[in-house]
Every structure is written in structure tokens, then in C-alpha cells.
């Protein structure tokens, strides 16, 4: 992977304001971003994201994660080294990238609903990363 300063890091937020609802976010990636390398998911209430969340994610209408894909599979704890927390996607060409996210909140016995925020970080590169 290229050095960190060659990466374009973007943050997108979705506010989850009611239980058992779906929330849609449409985000435009940076115009200079040509390759989407990976994403990371966090929240201000990690427990709610872990237990209650699932999402569908599309890049330029190409499915990255299907409906029903649990958010807990995209989370990494603090015990994972910061450099390794990103979920890699390969090197997907973005063009004028549009990231569509359909986040779904569902009841869970371990997590009582309170309004929370879902944050998606996108890591992109301008040039194709050199193979190491």
C-alpha cells in the first residue's frame, strides 16, 4: 500500500434517530480519488452499531456489501492496530465516486435504542498503489 499521505481519507456520517428504521446516505467521494482501497465503520455508540446495525453499501451502483450485512463484521476494536483497522476492498476504480449506504437499525436484546451516529471512513488513492 502507498504511504498514508497519498491516501485521501473522508468521513461520512449517518444519524440514526429512530429504532427499526432504515437510513439512507448518499456521499460523493473526493474528485481526485481514483481508487477506493477500503472503508472503516465507527460510531459514537459502538455497542448499538455492533448489535443493531446492518447495511447495504454501493459504489457507483456496484454492490460492495449486500443488504443484511451486519455492521459488526466491519468494526474493529481498539485492540486492533490502527494501521490495520481498515476493511480492504481491493483497488476499485471510483471515477466520480458516489457511495450509497442504506443503514438499517434492528432491535437487539443487548442494546436498547438511543439516537446514535454511524460514521463511515473511506480511504482512497489518487494513483494506483504500487504492488509491494
Amino acid at each position: 500500500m502507498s504511504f498514508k499521505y497519498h491516501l485521501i481519507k473522508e468521513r461520512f456520517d449517518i444519524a440514526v434517530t429512530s429504532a427499526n428504521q432504515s437510513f439512507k446516505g448518499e456521499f460523493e467521494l473526493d474528485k481526485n480519488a481514483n481508487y477506493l482501497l477500503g472503508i472503516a465503520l465507527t460510531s459514537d455508540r459502538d455497542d448499538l452499531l455492533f448489535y443493531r446495525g446492518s447495511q447495504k453499501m454501493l459504489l457507483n451502483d456496484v454492490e460492495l456489501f449486500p443488504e443484511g450485512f451486519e455492521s459488526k463484521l466491519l468494526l474493529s476494536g481498539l485492540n486492533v492496530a490502527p494501521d490495520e483497522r481498515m476493511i480492504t476492498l481491493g483497488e476499485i476504480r471510483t471515477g466520480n465516486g458516489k457511495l450509497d449506504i442504506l443503514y438499517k437499525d434492528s432491535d437487539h436484546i443487548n442494546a436498547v435504542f438511543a439516537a446514535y451516529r454511524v460514521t463511515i471512513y473511506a480511504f482512497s488513492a489518487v494513483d494506483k498503489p504500487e504492488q509491494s
Partner: protein
Amino acid sequence: MKKILVHTLKVSTPGAKVQLQIRLPRNVKTVTAINVTTNGFPVDSSSKREVGWLWLRLPEMRDVFFAEVLKVPVQEHGNATFSNIPNLSFGAGNAWIDGGKEETFSVVVDKLSTLVEGYYTDQLKGDFTASYTVNIYLIAET
């Protein structure tokens, strides 16, 4: 290109035996990884009770390529303690603090038909919860 397929199974009958079919898109060439999760249990840090048994097989071959014993999720992600050894983790075993990256089970299953068959047997028999879901993730190359 990688494609992820999710098949969700809702189990609400104690001791249920469920036959399932997962349809693969026509452009799928190989299934390369599998992950199975369960959802809907209260956190239970002491029990490693079996939730159910899952088999996946190819209908053409009648050949099982994946079998797993699913267990109640245990909330001690990387936080196992041993006597006389101090705990080095940050937290108390919460997944969002101590949890690692989810790992998938690698397989190479060449597509012979557009169908994967499965068989699931509930082993909880009504304990813990009235109903729960089993999510089967197939990661495929197209």
C-alpha cells in the same frame, strides 16, 4: 471481482430442522470464503452452549463442503484471563474495544450449479431466546 451473498435464517421453533437453498448469481465462478454469525442472544459470558449445527453442500455432488457448530457468542474477545497473569487488554471484553477483525473460513468451491444447499438443526431448543437469526455469508469471485 468479489461478491458477498447474505442468507438469513430465522429460527423460531425449538429444535427446528431447516433445509435451505442459497441461489448463486450466474456470474459467480467460485465461492472463496464463508462466515456464519448468530444474532439475537443476550450476552452470556459463561456459557458456550451450542446454538445449532449447519451444513452446506453442493446439490450436484451431494457433497458437504462446510460444516460448523454454532455457539452462543461469548463476550470475551481477546480478553481471556489466567490466574497470576495480569490482563493486558484495554477493556472488559467488549467487542468494540477488544474485538479483532472478523475472519472468514477459506474454501474453494467451484460453482457447478447456481444453487448451494444447506441443512440447519437447532440445538438450543428454546433456551435463552424465543427466536434468533443465523446469517450465512458467502464470499464469491465473479
